[in-house]
């Protein structure tokens, strides 16, 4: 589970100083000859591994990864051996992580948003054509099945030796058709498998497996469109194609009634009557996914309601968490308080326990008939997860539980960074406790904490886990898809993966992009406000 960013302020200055001493000692040790030898050793291992990988790649004709790896290895050696390239040591890994974890997924999402990538539209077009041909084979009524053994005839030509499952007549099948042979020429074992055939050499072992493509491509015409095909290693069956691919016109024709299936430019062959052949293929569809968001009543209907709730959820969680975190930080910041460290550690526990675990535990605690909260603590019967409004309260409370320790830590750090001269000066000027907090502490604190609040808002705006694991977006409303506690991202998830026909990655990506712009807009406004705050201070 991803988390809001960790606080940058050290928890206390004295411990920070103590910690600082150790790295500098380490640096001193490792910048000498010992460190240099270690560096050479590590680089040698890296180089050895990459040379070994390069030979493997070359032997498999993987030239693109070969070149990438070769350049990467040279770059690593260059960076670590040349003095001038020293700053790159830090820049390059950072850039690689940025590319890998941020830029590439974003580009991929944008790319997918403009395609029809979804269930039934995964393959390339030529693969889809092969797929349609393979699936559109019918086993005709009274279609025959055969025991089969691939073999070579006297001229070395690939044939199938066949014994009809009904009647036991023996044949040799070639691309020209079936040719009867005396059944006495064939010996079969107890299971009915063909063991030998006079005049033919049965294929075995690696010779047999090496001919896989020829064997599966071999069709033995019987009557009309029907043909016998090998199925596995010892069975052959008579199959009849239902569709014919017309390469010249790039269309499929249904054999029995001549219905034509044409490429609809959206990744499918479709008949005039609207019947679609499966599989389809992945292709660009321009802005269709975005226009679906506007025109599809399923998306449009609950959007505003879900958007408002998402906004309320994210802001309330951040504001409550900040208030509670700050309150506790101020309370525990008193000098001379006993067991201060213990309290502080206890408060961080919700933050330290994996979030998904807490969420599942909370789900149990809030069960209104059997949960501890109702039964053991409140002795009430509050429908925490079953009533639309109480469910909203529940997700906010549980998110508060998961988020306040973060603001507690941040505020604790920020409080200690406020110069005591300022607070003392204010006291001398006669400020009361509330005035001191309101006029001095809070403004100074907000300079540090406000950007983190915006980050936390953006995080909670897309906090899929908290919603999905606690209420699953429920309880259900009468509207399809959007439950009472669904936020935009969980709603998108349901729209893309639990509606229509299987998964719709194209639509999901398009909605994700829209959500990004919403969050970006809100954050930009927020950051602009923060700057004003700094000016005031």
């Amino acid at each position, binding site marked *: 589970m991803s988390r809001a960013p960790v606080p940058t302020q050290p928890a206390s200055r004295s411990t920070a100083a103590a910690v600082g001493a150790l790295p500098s000692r380490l640096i001193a040790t490792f910048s000498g000859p010992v460190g240099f030898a270690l560096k050479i050793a590590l680089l040698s291992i890296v180089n050895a591994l990459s040379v070994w990988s390069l030979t493997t790649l070359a032997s498999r004709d993987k030239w693109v990864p070969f070149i990438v790896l070769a350049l990467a290895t040279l770059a690593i050696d260059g960076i670590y051996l040349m003095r001038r390239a020293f700053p790159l040591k830090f820049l390059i890994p950072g850039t690689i992580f940025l590319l890998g974890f941020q830029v590439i997924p974003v580009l991929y999402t944008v790319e997918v948003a403009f395609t029809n990538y979804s269930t039934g539209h995964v*393959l390339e077009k030529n693969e889809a054509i092969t797929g349609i041909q393979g699936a559109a084979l019918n086993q005709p009524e009274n279609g025959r099945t055969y025991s089969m053994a691939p073999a070579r005839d006297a001229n070395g030509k690939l044939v199938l030796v066949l014994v009809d499952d009904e009647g036991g007549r023996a044949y040799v099948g070639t691309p020209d058709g079936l040719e009867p042979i005396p059944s006495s020429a064939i010996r079969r074992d107890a299971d009915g498998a063909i063991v030998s055939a006079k005049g033919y050499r049965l294929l075995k072992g690696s010779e047999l*497996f090496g001919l896989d493509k020829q064997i*599966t491509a071999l069709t033995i015409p019987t009557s009309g469109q029907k043909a016998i095909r090998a199925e596995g290693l010892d069975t052959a069956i008579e199959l009849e194609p239902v569709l014919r691919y017309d390469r010249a016109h790039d269309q499929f024709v249904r054999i029995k009634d001549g219905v034509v299936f044409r490429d609809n430019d959206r990744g499918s062959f479709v008949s005039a009557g609207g019947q679609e052949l499966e599989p389809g293929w992945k292709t660009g569809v321009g802005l269709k996914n975005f226009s679906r968001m506007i025109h599809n009543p399923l998306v449009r209907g609950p959007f505003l309601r879900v958007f408002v709730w998402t906004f309320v959820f994210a802001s309330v969680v951040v504001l409550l968490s900040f208030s509670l975190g700050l309150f506790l930080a101020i309370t525990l910041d008193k000098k001379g308080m006993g067991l201060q460290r213990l309290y502080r550690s206890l408060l961080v526990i919700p933050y330290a326990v994996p979030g998904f675990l807490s969420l599942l535990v909370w789900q*149990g605690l809030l*069960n209104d008939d059997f949960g501890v909260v109702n039964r053991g603590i409140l002795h009430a019967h509050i429908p925490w*997860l079953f009533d639309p409004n109480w469910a909203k309260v529940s997700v906010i409370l549980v998110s508060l539980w998961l988020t306040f320790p973060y603001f507690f830590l941040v505020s604790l750090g920020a409080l200690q960074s406020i110069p005591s001269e300022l607070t003392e000066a204010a006291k001398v000027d006669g400020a009361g406790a509330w005035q001191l907090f309101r006029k001095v502490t809070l403004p100074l604190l907000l300079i540090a904490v406000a950007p983190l609040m915006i980050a936390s808002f953006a995080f909670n705006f897309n906090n899929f886990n908290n919603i999905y694991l606690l209420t699953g977006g429920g309880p259900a409303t*009468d509207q399809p898809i959007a439950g009472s506690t669904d936020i935009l991202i969980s709603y998108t998830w349901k729209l893309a993966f639990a509606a*229509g026909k*299987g998964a719709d990655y194209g639509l999901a990506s398009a909605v994700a992009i829209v959500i990004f712009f919403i969050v970006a807009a809100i954050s930009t406004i927020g950051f602009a406000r923060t700057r004003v705050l700094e000016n005031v201070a």
Partner: protein
Amino acid sequence: MLNKQMARVGTVLLAAVAVALLVLAPGAPAAHKAAAATTIRIWTDQDRKAAVDRVTSAWGNSKGVEVEVVVKPFGKIRDDLKTIQAGQAPDVVVAAHDWTGQLAADGLVVPIVPNKAVLKLVPKYARDAFSYGTGVARLYGMPTTLENVGLFVNTSLVKVPKTWAALEKSALAFKRKSADNLAIAVQQGAGGDAYHMYPFFSGLCGYVFGKTKGGSLSPSNIGLGNKAFLKNAPLIDKWNREGLITSKVDSSTAQNAFLKGQAAYWITGPWNIDTVRKAGVKFQIIQVPKIKCRAAPFLGVNGFMVTKFAASHGVESAAKDLVASYMAGANAQQDLAAANGRYPANVTAGKRITDPALRQIGRASTGGVPMPNIPQMGSVWDELGGAWVKSTKGSGATPARSAFATAAANIRKKIASG
């Protein structure tokens, strides 16, 4: 100065190591090439790995094929097939039958045609679970193991009921004995659980998708609001008033209640047989008795599929031999079923099951309905589960007729949006 000198030394050192490895390295890739032609790669989940290893290596040894078993989380098997590079792609996968529609529509798996001997051994309903096609229905997987829920009865608390009326009476009588007791423990929770509730749904003559003339499931024929079911739906309101079932019960509540003797009836599947045994509860498993229609459970069928990659890897005939013929055999299925405590699809292997609980759960599957395998099923789960939650949440519950009619309308809208 010192550093420059050392850098030169270091470079020489690096070069030496590199050259040494260059000489040693080619051994590995060469070995790989020789093996490539006759290796079949299988994706399985961790639970089945040991059994798949054993069964497939027996096949591989007899055919002279090398089998490489790769472990993936179960759901990942379905999802990763879409994105895997052809070079690393599997030829055969372990699969759940309800993936069939999605994978076939994607074109990632290929149809198989078993021979007649196999057809006799693997019953039609299990094969139907793996059949899919909008025009022609084809078989996309070989069923190996079955799973379904049944009614677990604590025989030291109650007698095994023969009729629905007897079950209802005894469950309610047991519930009245203590405030902590549940009548029938069946898991729902706020999110709902259409799978565990299915016996009640089918018992009131509900169905999810009707069939076309050709026998395949029709996404436009939705049975949630069918007349017979709506006529019977007020029984749900009665059950809700009586407290026979309540959506407040989630999986852990249901399990705890049954194991602690606070529920005499529990609807669950073979995955909990060991748990119940360990708790020392004396139990018997039956199908929920007929309510208005047969209270058949959902069937989950697991099996093996051949992927489209087998053809490009040049192992299609071998892969089909493994899946369509060998995996159908009684010995292979017995092994697979035993390793996971499930009932085998092969009837001969089924007769060899000696575990009484497993035999009982097998019998409880009679007339079971395979979970619909068309991709549109994704639009159903939440709505069907949600209708049960709304109509069985105790006070303030929505009348069942309206809850299920709304769900049916929503499912129609969701499917139309695709």
